[in-house]
């Protein structure tokens, strides 16, 4: 629900340069070499094995090309998952649906609702640990395609949802267009805290997200940016998360959307990785809906 944040900030970011004659130029900023840190992006969903992506941080201004990327992702590490009873070592595999394409995948332990999962990573003398839970999943009341007023093919998905008043809930929403997207992509403004609609039934628009915001040209050239197309089949995934998991994605999205905005003070990312690492290990309670947009 950072919609109104986006409204305030979008306004301010747009108007100042527009109203005034502003000029821009490139400058050089000298930065020291940063301390190297291990970055974890890991998740586990009910009914599925764990997935963990490991990378390292990079100096801010360095050019990132295939050589630097190799240094960032190609290093030895042991990733261990435990559910409190048994543990397994995740296996390093190649999967080009993800960036970077090297992932660690479980083969034994599948996520179960209500359980806690512990992750341990050992790499180059460092050890990181984290834990997370999988809350029970919930469903949308209904989903339908809503054509935009001034378009005959593009629109948003109109979702109806009722929040459970007796519990504290956090949500995250993804969507994937069949045959067009490689994997589930978070929608624009994907994280929600039920503090604003606890117990209420509400309706809202789902705006399609983009797989990477670094592809500025791609975004500018995408005529369907934030929209869904009539005729497509879309899978919507509604997830529940625990507080620590929510805090991470909330602060990450804040950084992704407003990090380059000088009117907004940077906020620290709330990582749940212990031991000097960055990133997240999170559990999702997932519910899938498939919708043909007509």
């Amino acid at each position, binding site marked *: 629900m950072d919609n109104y944040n986006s409204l305030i900030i979008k306004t*301010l970011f747009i108007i100042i340069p527009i109203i005034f004659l*502003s000029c821009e130029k490139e*400058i050089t900023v000298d930065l020291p070499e940063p301390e190297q840190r291990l970055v974890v992006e890991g998740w586990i969903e009910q009914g599925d094995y764990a997935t963990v992506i490991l990378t390292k941080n990079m100096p*801010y201004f360095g050019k990132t090309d295939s050589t630097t990327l190799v240094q960032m992702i190609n290093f030895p590490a042991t990733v261990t998952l435990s559910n409190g009873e048994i543990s397994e070592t995740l296996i390093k595999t190649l999967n080009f649906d993800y960036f970077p394409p090297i992932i660690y995948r479980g083969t034994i332990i599948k996520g179960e609702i209500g359980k806690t999962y512990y992750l341990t990573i050992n790499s180059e003398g460092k050890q990181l640990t984290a834990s997370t839970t999988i809350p029970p999943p919930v469903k949308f009341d209904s989903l339908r395609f809503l054509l935009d007023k001034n378009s005959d093919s593009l629109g948003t998905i109109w979702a109806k949802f009722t929040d459970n008043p007796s519990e504290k809930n956090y949500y995250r929403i993804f969507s994937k267009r069949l045959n067009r997207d490689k994997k589930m992509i978070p929608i624009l403004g994907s994280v929600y805290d039920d503090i604003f609609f606890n117990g209420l039934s509400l309706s809202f628009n789902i705006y399609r997200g983009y797989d*990477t915001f670094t592809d500025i040209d791609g975004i500018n050239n995408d005529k369907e940016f934030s929209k869904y197309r009539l005729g497509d089949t879309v899978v919507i995934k509604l997830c529940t998360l625990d507080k620590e998991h929510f805090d991470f994605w909330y602060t990450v999205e804040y950084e992704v959307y407003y990090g380059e905005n000088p009117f907004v003070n940077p906020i620290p990312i709330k990582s749940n990785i212990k031991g000097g690492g960055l990133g*997240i290990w999170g559990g999702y309670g997932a519910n899938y809906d498939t919708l043909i947009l007509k």
Partner: protein
Amino acid sequence: MKKLTPFIFLFVISIQNLFSQNKYTISGYVRDAATGENLIGANVYVKNSTKGATTNHYGFYSLTLTEGIYNIAASFIGYTEEIKQINLNKNIIINFSLNEKPITVKEVTVTGEKSDANIKSTEVGKFEIPIEKVKIMPAFMGEVDIFKTIQLTPGIQSSGEGNSVFYVRGGGPDQNLILLDEAVVYNASHLFGFFSIFNADAIKNIELTKGSMPANYGGRLASVLDISMKEGNNKNYQVDGGIGLISSRLTIQGPIKKDTSSFIISARRTYADIIMKPFVKKTSPFKNSGYYFYDLNAKVNYIINDKDRIYLSGYFGRDIFGLNVDSGSFKNNISWGNATSTLRWNHLFNNKLFMNTTLLYSDYNFTFTATQQQYDFSLTSGVTDYECKSDFSYHPSSLHNIKFGSDYIYHIFAPNSFTAKTGDVNLDLGEKIKLYSHNLALYINDEIELTSRLKLNTGIRYTLFQQIGPFKRFIQDAAYNIIDSIIYKKGENIKTYSNIEPRISARFFIDTSSSVKIAYTHNYQYIHLASISNVNLPTDIWVPSSSVIKPQFGIQYSLGYYKNFYNNYYETSIEIYYKQLKNQIEFREGVTPEQSIHNNIDNNFTFGKGESYGVEIFIQKKEGKINGWIGYTLSWTTRQFSEINNGKKFYAKYDRRHDISYVTNFQLNKQWIFSIIWVYATGNAMTIPISRYFIEGNIINEYGEKNAYRMKPYHRLDLGVTYYFKKKKNFESNINFSVYNAYNRYNPYYIYFETKGNINEYYLETKAKQVSLFPMLPSITWNFKF
């Protein structure tokens, strides 16, 4: 022995009577002969002696001397001195009507004493800016601005390009008390801070005190900017105005009853929205957007009799911004403004005791509304004050100048009220929260002439702040989760703070042209401005002290040396200061606006302390064909919060190592005045990222130490030329041509980092980009008066 005592007593008394001479009081008003306006801070003194007095904010003076024959002179900068010879053998009233000095062509030779107030005054760090000087400064977008002029004095720093919010000696913008005819102004900026709300045509006097304020002022830590409106010409009707490219203004004043009652009305509006429309492309998504501001000052006064006078004044101003993105998907309106009204009564009890009692109302309000498709959102924030104050000035002898009084304010704060709707459902954003408090101050201050060289200005201010209900307090645990709440009834006392603020300063004459001053003051501040971003925006919120927010506290030490040359032609000074600040307020790291919903906003703050110190050097030539000043400030300002920057000390965003201002006006002849301003400031501090990493295909920044990076230095040259047309009958006009940023320097406004590329293609590059706001900006304004 018993029988003798009464005789001894009588004898002693009669001897005393023989030796003591009678003292009598001269009192009255100093006014402008042409308009009847009271002159504030005019000198009334005995020629060839150090005995004298200055007029107060209402033009009143009182001088007690021993019997005798004296030449009493009244002088005020820009006016011809008037001298009256009197034989003082009873209390008398002498009113002075001074005439404006004609514009001189050649260097003025020394005739009469120039004002040496900067050496004599016991107030350290005080700066008076004659409004006429403000008017000939180069204009920014066609408007001369009081705040821009103030930022040219040492110790006062602007907060950035085009901003009119200012910082005094390392203090935040909320630490400046801005008064317009005694009413507090909470947000004195138009257009996100690019202009101030003060229309120079309606203003009579501007007085700035940097810290070390005497006991009659309080409530803020860093400075007092006391602005007085004109009363209105009570002899003749007068119209002043100006037409410019971006805005226009008009002032009408005149007598309601000649010499007894007058009015003044002043209005100003920008029409940037109308002008911009033809330039914004029809295809631009922003074609239905616009911005404008307007303000209105009005005042009426009535002299009831020679002991009583009443004034009623008001200010109303508003900024309105509307953004309408063409596809209709995004609409936004932002508006904010102040409204103040003041009713004052001057009463002269006798020729030594003057009183001013004021009733005030002040309201500041900010509203933000936005619509995006089915989603509607609004945010409002504001403060309303009801105030009653009484200020007395008592002049028992020429050795004492006593001020005492009281100030009571009833505050109603509404820091942030949200409403939001998606589709037809109103989201639950909590009740509209209002915070109520009482704020009382009592003070007494005396300026004592201890010896002919040493004058002391000492006082005490007692302040009391009380938060009262109705109020709902949410209680947090250590992880900032809400676990409980307490409800307070209407009027119920929630928290009380009371403090004593000693103020002391002293001036010691080394000789007739130089002095040393020292000051030591304690100040408490009960209201605070919380900023969401590093850039000053109207989204900053005012909050009162509470059981969670303790009052801000500041101690300032200052020492200065003042020397005038060539019979007060040149004023120079060097001042050093050291400030300690406690209970400074910031939002906790990572707090976003939603965390104030279903919660108390003060649960999201964290508290720390600050320190600031520096040296200010100043050289000024006040009169003559060429006049102006140079100021240089070298200063440091740091903050330390246990919950910010890992508890390490960091530079405040107001930290500015070097600050230079150079101002020169050159009066060529009766037709032409040229003015030059050059400013230099060390770059602003900011927090920048030091490394980055990937999450879900996006780049996440890892940030370094808070405010560890400096933008490039800021410097700028402004040029202005004003041509005065020949005065016809009763019509005067001039045309001002100004160039802002004459050598077109790209001063940094902010820096952002742009990442281009596509990770899917394994290529990414980040560049640092600097955005500058104003290139060279010329402007033309035609000003008239009749």
